[in-house]
C-alpha cells in the first residue's frame, strides 16, 4: 500500500532542520525524513483492532514540527520509527461489525488501546491524554496513532485502530467536518484547562487551526467578558471574528489591545511601544508555542493570571522573571480525555462532535491534496495563513483501490470538495 513514511535518518532530520531555519517551515520537505513508499499493511495487533481506510487526513502543526526536524528530543522515547504520520483522521472501517461505517480516530494510544490492565491512574480517571503507559504494553511506544510503527497513520491507504479509538460519524456530517473533530477536541480540552471564570478577560494568541478551535471552544464552553484574538493573516482574522472574538488584532497591536481591553496602566520606557502592562488579561492561551509567543503571553497576562500552552513548544528561551514576580501559572494542554462540563463528565470527542457542528468548523478545511503531492501539501500547510488557508488535508477518497470496492463501502453521497476543485478532479 501507499504511505508517507518517516524514518529515523538523522542526516535527513538535520537537513530538514537547516532548510526550515534558512528558508522557512516546510521548505525542507524534499530533503527531509518523509518519503512516499510502498509498504506492507500493518498487521492487526489484537482482536479488538480494526482496519481503517482514511478518507481525509489532516496535516497538523506538530507534524510540521516533526518534518522540519524541530521536535523536542523529549519525544524520542515515545515514538517508534519508521512511522506513518497523520492523526487527524476520518476513515472507513474495513472489517468487523461496523464495516463500511465512517469513523473519526481518537489517536491517543492509552492503556486500553495497549491492552494494559489495570489502567494507569490517569486513564482510570478518564484522562487518557495523560496516560502514563504510552511506551509500554502490547504495541511499541508511541504517544498517538501517527507516531507509532505498529499502528500506521493517517497519511496512508490503511491503518489499524483499536475499537476504543473509534468514534462513529453521523451520516449527516461531511468528511471535512469529521476531520476537524480531532483539532476541535484539542481546542475544547485547552479551553477547559484554562478554567476561565465568567467575566474574565481572555486572550488567544495565534489563529491557526488550533487557535481558532480554542477560540470557538472558549466561546461555547466559557463565559469570558472579552475575548481577544491575535491573528496574523487576513483569513485568520476573518475566522477569529466569525468564531466569536470580541476584538481581533495584529500581533504588533497586542500590548496596546490588551491594555485597552483591561484599562490597566502600563510602562513605556522607550516611548515607542508599550513595554510592560501593569495588569493584563486573566488568561492567555498560547496557540503558537514559540519562544516569542510565550514571551508575549507573559507580557500581557495579569499578575496571578494563567497561561495555557496549547501549541506545541520545543526548546524555548524565555525570560521567566515575570512568571516568578507576577506569580503567573503556566500550564500545558495536550490532547483530550474526559471533561467536566455542567452536565457532568463527558468525553472530549463527544463535545468536539457538537462543536464542529455548532460552528461549522468544516469551513476551515481549505485545501485537499493527494498523497503523491505531499511536498506541495506540506509546504502549503506550513504557509497556510499566508496563502489564505487554515487546514490542509490529504484526500484519500479518490484512491479507490480494488480491495476497497470489495469492502462495499456504503458511505453516504459526499460533496465534492469546494475549494480545491481543480486539484482533485484531476486526481
Amino acid at each position, binding site marked *: 500500500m501507499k504511505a508517507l513514511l518517516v524514518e529515523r535518518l538523522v542526516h535527513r532530520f538535520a537537513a530538514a532542520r537547516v532548510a526550515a531555519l534558512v528558508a522557512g517551515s516546510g521548505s525542507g520537505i524534499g530533503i527531509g525524513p518523509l518519503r512516499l513508499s510502498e509498504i506492507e499493511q500493518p498487521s492487526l495487533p489484537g482482536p479488538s483492532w480494526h482496519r481503517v481506510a482514511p478518507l481525509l487526513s489532516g496535516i497538523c502543526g506538530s507534524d510540521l514540527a516533526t518534518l522540519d526536524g524541530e521536535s523536542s528530543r523529549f519525544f524520542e522515547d515515545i515514538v517508534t520509527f519508521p512511522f506513518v504520520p497523520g492523526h487527524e483522521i476520518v476513515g472507513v472501517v474495513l472489517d468487523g461489525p461496523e464495516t463500511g461505517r465512517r469513523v473519526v480516530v481518537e489517536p491517543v494510544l492509552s492503556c486500553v488501546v495497549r491492552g494494559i490492565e489495570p489502567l494507569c491512574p490517569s486513564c482510570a480517571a478518564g484522562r487518557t491524554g495523560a496516560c502514563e503507559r504510552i511506551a509500554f504494553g502490547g504495541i511499541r511506544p508511541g504517544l498517538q496513532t501517527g507516531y507509532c510503527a505498529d499502528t500506521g497513520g493517517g497519511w496512508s491507504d490503511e491503518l489499524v485502530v483499536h475499537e476504543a479509538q473509534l468514534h462513529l460519524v453521523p451520516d449527516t456530517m461531511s468528511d471535512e467536518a469529521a476531520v476537524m473533530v480531532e483539532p476541535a477536541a484539542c481546542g475544547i480540552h485547552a479551553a477547559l484547562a484554562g478554567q476561565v471564570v465568567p467575566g474574565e478577560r481572555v486572550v488567544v494568541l495565534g489563529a491557526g487551526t488550533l487557535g481558532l478551535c480554542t477560540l470557538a471552544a472558549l466561546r461555547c464552553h466559557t463565559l469570558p467578558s472579552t475575548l481577544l484574538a491575535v491573528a496574523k493573516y487576513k483569513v485568520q482574522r476573518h475566522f477569529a471574528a466569525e468564531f466569536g472574538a470580541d476584538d481581533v488584532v495584529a500581533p504588533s497591536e497586542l500590548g496596546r489591545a490588551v491594555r485597552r481591553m483591561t*484599562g490597566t*496602566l502600563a510602562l513605556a520606557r522607550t*516611548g515607542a511601544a508599550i513595554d510592560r502592562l501593569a495588569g493584563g488579561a486573566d488568561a492567555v492561551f498560547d496557540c503558537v508555542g514559540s519562544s516569542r509567543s510565550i514571551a508575549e503571553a507573559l507580557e500581557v497576562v495579569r499578575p496571578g493570571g494563567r497561561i495555557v500552552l496549547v501549541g506545541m513548544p520545543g526548546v524555548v528561551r524565555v525570560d521567566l522573571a515575570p512568571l516568578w514576580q507576577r506569580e503567573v501559572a503556566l500550564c500545558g494542554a495536550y490532547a483530550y480525555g474526559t471533561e467536566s462540563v455542567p452536565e457532568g463528565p463527558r468525553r472530549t470527542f463527544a463535545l468536539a462532535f457538537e462543536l464542529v457542528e455548532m460552528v461549522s468548523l468544516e469551513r476551515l478545511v481549505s485545501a485537499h491534496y493527494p498523497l503523491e503531492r505531499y511536498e506541495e501539501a506540506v509546504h502549503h500547510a506550513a504557509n497556510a495563513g499566508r496563502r489564505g488557508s487554515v487546514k490542509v488535508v490529504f484526500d484519500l477518497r479518490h484512491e479507490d483501490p480494488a480491495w476497497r470496492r470489495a469492502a462495499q463501502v456504503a458511505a453516504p453521497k459526499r460533496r465534492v470538495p469546494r475549494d480545491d476543485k481543480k486539484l482533485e478532479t484531476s486526481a
Partner: protein
Amino acid sequence: MSPRPGFVLEVDRSTPPTLFWHGEGFRFEQLPEGSRVVYPPESLDGLADPDAAIRHALEHPVGDSAPLSALLKPEMRLTIAFDDVSLPLPPMRRPDMRQRVVEAVLDAAAAAGVDDVVLIAALALHRRMTDNELRHALGDRVFDAFAPHGLLLQHDAEDPAALVHLGLTEQGEDVEINRRAAESDLLVYVNINLSAMDGGHKSVATGLASYRSLKHHHNVRTLQHSRSLMDRHHSEMHSSNWRMGRLIKNAGVKIFQIESTLNLDMFPSQFSFLQKREWEWSLADRAGFHSTRLALDHTPPRLARQIFQSMLSPYAPTSVQAGEVEAVHDLTLENLHRQQLVAVEGQTDILTMGLPYLSPYNVNSIMNPILVACLGLGYFFNLYRGRPLVREGGVCIISHPTPWAFNPVHHPSYIDFFEQVLADTTDMFEIEKRYEQQFATDPWYIHLYRTSYAYHGVHPLYMWYWCAHALDYLGGVIIVGGDRAAVRRMGFKPASTLADALEMAEDIVGRGPSITHLHAPPLLVADVS
C-alpha cells in the same frame, strides 16, 4: 506699497500651476480652466513698538474694566493664564507674544508688590508643555523666575483638588474650572488670537476647564451646529462657551483679558514663496520652491518632519487689547478680520485644499491621520463666514500624505482610537455613545495626560467630532496622495493624483463641476455671499 487684500482668482490658460501644501512637502497642480483660487490677503505691518502698545493696552482697557495697575494690590492672589503650545502656528520666533505680554503684566505686578503670583498654562485636555516649550513661550526671565519655585503650573483637568465647580448654566451645563484661577482675586488671561475661533469666553471656559465641563460643548451635536467655528455668532460651541463665561463672571471670577492678533507673516524668508502669488514669484522664489520640492522628495519623512517642525515664524503683532472679555474680543475680531477676511462670491461644487505639516495638536510631533481629518474638515472647512465655500453635498478634496504614523508619547489614545474605534465604526454618534466614556476615564490615559506629555484620552474623539459639521454637510471626502489604508480607515476615498480625485468627485457632484481651491496657509477666512 501697502499690503493688498485677499482675492479670488479665476484660473485661465495662462495661469501658472497652483501651489498645494502636501504635509512636509508641496504639490504643484494645474487646476482646470475656470476653477477659482482664494488667496489670502498680504501680511499687514506689525506694530512699531509692541511693548509700548502692550503697556498702553494694559493701562487703557476697553469695556468695563479698570487699568491693570489699579487692579493690583500687594496682598492679592494673582493668576496669569496663557495659551498653550497649540498657538501660534507655526511657533513664533522669540520673543513670543506671550512673553512680551506676561513680562509687562509682571512688571506691573512687581511694581505693585504683588507676592502671590502663579502662572498657569491653559491646556484644557491638551498635552502638557515641555520645559523648553514653556521657556520658548514665556521667555527665560519668566521661566527662571517662576518654574524653579513651582509657580509655573500647567492646568490639570484630572486633579479633583485643583478644580472647582462654579455651577450650572441656564441650559444645565456644568462649569468646572481651575481652582487657583477661580479663587484668585484677579485672573489675567493672555491670548494669542490666530483665528477667530480663539479667545473671548472660550479662553477661560475651555482652556481652564475639565472634561466634565468640556463635554457640554465638545460633542457631536454642538459641533454639527457650529456653522462655522470661525463665526462665533453662528457657532453652538461658542454660544455654550459664552454662557459658561458669563456664569464664571457672575460667580465672581474677575478676569482681565489680554488678546493680541498677529499678521500673516507666517514663514521665514527662505520660504517666502509660500506667501506670494505664483505668477509673482521671482527667480529666487522659483529656485527656492523647486529646489525645496526636489530636496523634500528625497528626504526621509522623519528628517523632513524635523526640518519643518523646527521652523519658526516671524509673526509680528498687529494689535493688543485688554480689559473686559467681551469688549476685548469684539475688538480682536475686528482686527483679525482686517487681516484675514476675503470676500468670495457664491459656493462651489468641489473644494480643494492642501494641508500643511502642522495642526494645533502636533507641534513638535507627527501629524497623524486623525489630525489630518481634523485640520482639513475641522479647521480649513470652517474657514468661512456666512455660508461654507462648498455647497451642501459637495466634495472636499484634501492633499496630504496622511501617514499611518503616530507619536506614542503625545498621542497614545489616538493609536487606540484609530486601531480599535475607527476599525469598528466612523459614525460619530455611535462613537460618542459607545466609546467616549471608555476613552475619557481610562486610567492610563489620565496618568499619561497628568504626568507625561500626552493628550487626554478623549482628545482623539474630540478631533473626530471636530469634523462633525463637515461630514454632515459634505457629499464626499477624497484625500490625494495619502496612505490608502489610513484614508480608508477613516471612511474617506484615497486618490493618487488631483486629476483622479476630480474625476471621482464628478461621480458625486455631477459633470462639469465648479472647483474652488483654498490657498492657505497663510490663514484666511472666506466671507461667502
